């Protein structure tokens, strides 16, 4: 296929805290292609959001990117100056968050906020910005855009707020949308609507989306490719259908097994024993080894390499090292 839109190579992010250095992201590498939805899955605290924020260079202090390379559309993002980076944020890479209600400024109307974003990045007249605002509201499937533009965020429902956030994010024709748990705060039917909207936008605008989620169901439904993160390491990545056909990594298998299903009523859920280790402690071996049912001696000694097990399917586990 053609050159990827985004490529992250060997990204390392550290947080220097009073308790010590937290290694949030440890050597993540992945590519996002043009016009695809790429899923980033993992438990809370595995570095999904930090990876997303790294793309915008907005890792909050005391966090910092200590190593790695991020290329976006041929540009090396980590070498850009702050003003150059600002011109990319919102214009070419946008982000939407988990809680749409908190992501909109409560004192401005929805229309004003979208107009502001448009005028932030493009020198257009108010009139043009206003027309584009209404177009965007239409694009994200909101009924009666002129009326919606006049409302304040708190007057809209959660699903509508998230649609407004998407309109805001895409108002300047961004080619990459980072969606950090965009449906976690919404109920299931609305969640399905938002995911459908994202899929439609991918098709109609050739938009690339980095979908950060802890929900494997969401991934199966919407993502073209997926990477599974565990304490800042990619443990498995590949095409969604390959991974769901045959999960290789014990962690991915555990995640899927822990989803409740109809028919499993009354039986205990097969949870992964133990909990996510803190990024504070560095250990030489596989980070999943303490919780892994297949742990071997070699797992304690060194980090397993990412090995190819299918056409585009990679797994970091010694069980597949030939």
């Amino acid at each position, binding site marked *: 296929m053609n050159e990827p839109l985004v490529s992250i190579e060997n990204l390392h992010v550290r947080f220097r805290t009073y308790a010590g250095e937290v290694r949030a992201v440890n050597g993540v590498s992945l590519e996002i292609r043009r016009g695809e939805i790429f899923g980033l899955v993992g438990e809370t605290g595995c570095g999904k959001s930090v990876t997303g924020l790294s793309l915008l260079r*907005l890792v909050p202090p005391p966090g910092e990117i200590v190593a790695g390379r991020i290329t976006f559309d041929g540009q090396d993002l980590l070498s850009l100056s702050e003003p150059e980076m*600002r011109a*990319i944020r*919102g214009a070419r890479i946008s982000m939407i968050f988990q809680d749409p209600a908190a*992501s909109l*400024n409560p004192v401005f109307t929805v229309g004003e906020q979208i107009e*502001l974003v448009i005028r932030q*990045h493009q020198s257009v007249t108010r009139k043009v910005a206003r027309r584009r605002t209404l177009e965007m509201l239409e694009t994200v499937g909101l009924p009666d855009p002129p009326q919606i533009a006049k409302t*304040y965020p708190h007057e809209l429902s959660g699903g509508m707020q998230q649609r407004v956030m998407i309109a805001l994010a895409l108002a300047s024709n961004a080619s990459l949308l980072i969606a950090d748990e965009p449906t976690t705060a919404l109920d299931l039917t609305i969640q399905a609507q938002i995911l459908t909207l994202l899929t439609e936008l991918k098709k109609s605008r050739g938009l690339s989306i980095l979908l950060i989620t802890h929900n494997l169901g969401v991934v199966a439904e919407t993502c073209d490719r997926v990477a599974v993160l565990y304490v800042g390491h990619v443990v498995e990545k590949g095409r969604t259908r390959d991974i769901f056909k045959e999960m290789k990594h014990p962690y991915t298998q555990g995640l899927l097994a822990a989803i409740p299903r109809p028919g499993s009523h009354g039986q205990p859920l097969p949870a992964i024993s133990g909990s996510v280790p803190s990024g504070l402690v560095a250990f030489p071996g596989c980070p999943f080894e303490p919780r892994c049912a297949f742990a071997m001696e070699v797992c304690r000694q060194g980090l397993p390499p990412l090995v190819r097990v299918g056409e585009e399917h990679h797994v970091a586990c010694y069980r597949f090292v030939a």
Partner: protein
Amino acid sequence: MSVAERWLGDWVRRREAQLEEYRLMVRAFRRDWLGVLSLLVIGVFVGGAIFAPYLTPYPEEGRGAPNLVNKFLPPSREHPFGTDYLGRDVLARVLFGGRSSLGIGFLVVIIAVAIGTPLGAIAGYSGQWLDEAIMRITDMWLSFPPLLLAIAIAAALGRPSFTNAMIAIALTWWPWYTRLVRAQTVSLRERSFIEAARGMGVSRITIIFRHILPNVMTPVMVQATMDIGSAILTGAAMSFIGLGAQPPTPDWGQMVSDGRIYIMNQPWYGAFPGLAIFLVTLAFNLLGDTIRDVADPRSRRAA
């Protein structure tokens, strides 16, 4: 339809949601009789100060011209508040005195908000060394008793005058707004919509002035309204000790100071300007309370 009309219509349409918000506020405000009463009291004093020359038959005496024939007349039909030691009508003096006393209240608060609010927002949003620097300077100003500091500044500024008193008081006042706004900003900074604005490529200055400031204006407005009363009181204290408006320009504090010698035999001279200070200060405090209740949509809708 004229251009102006079309423009106005456009403006109303664009601001409809905001106007509706104001309508709700006004409705809630009208339900609070203490708030309405205090607004009425303030209105009477402000109107009295502005239209003083037309409200009294003795505008010259109000400005300071003596009329020794009428010295120390008790309250009567011609002089409802009596006359002072130079025979001037006390009512006229109180009306004209409102100009400097109310003026100092409003101006001090406006200057203090103008200095303190942006500093607080910058400190709160920037954090790190800039925050430390601004807040430690603020602490330094706050470590002196405000009236003493104002007296010292007024003395340093030279000849006592209305302007000097105003500058002196305003300089002791801004740190409170810096603290208030900083506290609000620190909690706003972590909210998602500020993070979202950063994610949209908005610069730091734009975030502070466009996204932070409008969100902290409500507490600032409430504090400012309450402070007008205290600023008037401080202004009166300054002119009481002779550091404010200079005779013959009338001022409530200065009138109370002059009248205190005669308080036993001619109580009206000191009492009426004192009453004016009392009523206005109380009214601004009550108004501030009401605005706080009204500006919060939760308490408003429940009412």
